């Protein structure tokens, strides 16, 4: 499991990619990926394409990211989760508060 962050060339988009298990052990890494970034009116993308598992603390981390993003006028998009991960996001109705691809 790992967290990789990639800032786009125009500094408007930060993609955070989480591989493997997305759980509490990634707490510091996930927060560290964006906390020092000043991204006004941009977009955060949580790329879950290689994520195998999310637990409720991962959902909590995404809520923290959302709060952080919105305070700077940015939005959060959740990108390409696998079907089983999508189901968990849907159970939590995250499609209502995130852009979910």
């Amino acid at each position, binding site marked *: 499991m790992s967290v990789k962050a990639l800032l786009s060339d125009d500094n408007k988009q930060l993609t955070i990619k989480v591989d493997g298990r997305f759980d*509490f052990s990634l707490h510091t890494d996930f927060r560290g990926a964006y906390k020092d970034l000043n991204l006004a009116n941009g977009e955060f993308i949580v790329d879950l394409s290689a994520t195998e598992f999310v*637990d*409720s*603390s991962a*959902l*909590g*981390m995404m*809520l*923290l990211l959302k*709060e952080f993003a919105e305070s700077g006028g940015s939005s959060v998009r959740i990108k390409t989760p696998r079907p089983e991960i999508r189901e*968990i996001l*849907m*159970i*939590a*109705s*995250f499609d*209502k*508060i995130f852009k979910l691809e």
Partner: protein
Amino acid sequence: MLSVPQVLLVDDDPTNRVVLKHQIKKLGYTYIEACNGVEAVELFRNHPFDVVLMDILMPEMDGYQATRIIKELSHGFVPVIFLTGLTDDSALARCIESGGDDFLTRPYNHLLLKAKLESMLRIGRLYKQVEFQKNELNWHNARMQQENSVAQKVFANIIESDMESMYPGLKYSMSSMSMFNGDLVLAELNQSNGIDILVSDFTGHGLSAAIGSIPVADTFRTMTRKGFAFTEVLVEINKKLLRILPTNMFMATALISIDRVNQVVSVANMGLPDIYLCRGQKVIHSFSSQNLPLGIAQLSSHSLSFEMQTLMLDDVILAATDGVMEAQNSAGEFYGKQRIVDSIEKSDSQNDLFGNVLNGCVSFIGSSKQNDDITLLSVQHKQDELVPQEHQDTSRHEPAEWSMHFYLDAVNLRRFDILPYILQGIKQLQSIPGTGSELQTILTEMYANALDHGLLKLDSRLKHTPEGYMEFYNERSRRLAELQEGNIQIIISHQLREQGGGRFTLHLYDSGDGFDVKQVRAALETNKTPYGRGLALIEQLSTRVQFLGKGNAVMVVYDWE
């Protein structure tokens, strides 16, 4: 450790001792001398030492023997350095075997002696530091365990209640992965002769997850007992959680409300896995999550989604937290939805459906580690009499005479549900023996009739089909929100009775068109309609029921002793 290190100097040769004393003094240490092993052991018993310099060949008791005893006597680490003229490997090996920590061969090199003493003292200090920290940790650990167990008791007192005996057909099992459970099950009898059940799962587990359950339990119990609709209760709980929980914490929850008057179950699922309605060992409906978990965003009773289904005798509603779905076996597989459904379908009867699913999950996990709180709950629809609840006020007020009158116009009716407040008012004025729930049920049904049929002109025949209940409810919400005119008046009076006890007289008027009482009565008697149960219930529970005027006024008498 003493401020100046103290050395125990053991040697039978006075000349050797003189040389060593001189060197120890130069290093600024203090010392006590011993001429043989016996003396050394005796001194060691009575004085604190930081290091021992030990000769090997001595009368009475040699250095090996003395070292073995000293090592047994030591609390903590007191290094022993052997002083020896012997240089063969086997003698040196014996030094270490007998418990010695180092050795120095004669003739002594002054610098080497200094270095060895300092290094041994350093190890001694390190050892003492570790020992001290270990004790401190043990102490903190013991204190924390004690505080935890006290907190656990307080927590249990707040959260737990004997729910299975409260309601026929209710079963649940909770297995927490740490001392405090982040899952929560609460139940309270509701105004519809049924029960409202809250099954919840906080983010994470342990103390931080458990702490949020206290305000939830408090709000749920108080409001449900007072007769608030579950939608209002959820809105209030959400408001509280939104205020107290940090952003990354929330509560996935489901509220199961069983209405035994209308034989219908309502489920609002907010982030829990599917909740199953089972009939004859078949899942006939899944209540899927349609809302955000609580504690994330604002919620109003209008924006809350829930589903209704009609209930038949012995139907089972089964709910689980995600700990059940995500329970892992030794191969790392999840228990998952399909295994739950399989367990349901493989049950011999509705009665052992709960046990089957639970056992299935437990044996699936086997000996692998539980990694989340696991909660499973089922409620089987039965028509047994309810047992009066302890919490309800059993004290009796001396009967008194009073009356109250409410006039509610369309604005009031639209704005909020006044019934819980009226019920609370009655309780304050006149608590009666038993639960008082009969009176509550009567008034609730009378009010529902006046509002739903009198003013909102809803047709109960909508409830003919299972989907109809939901349609009925939605239509009711829509019409109520648009209600512009009309009013309801409620007059409740209480008189003393000569033989003791008292008589409640409840009058309800609505400004609607009324209804044909005879026709409804006839329908009730001739066939088992899925509607009109409210009226039947009022008649059953009360002393007397009389419809007045064109059916838009009703008087109900309820006597108590």
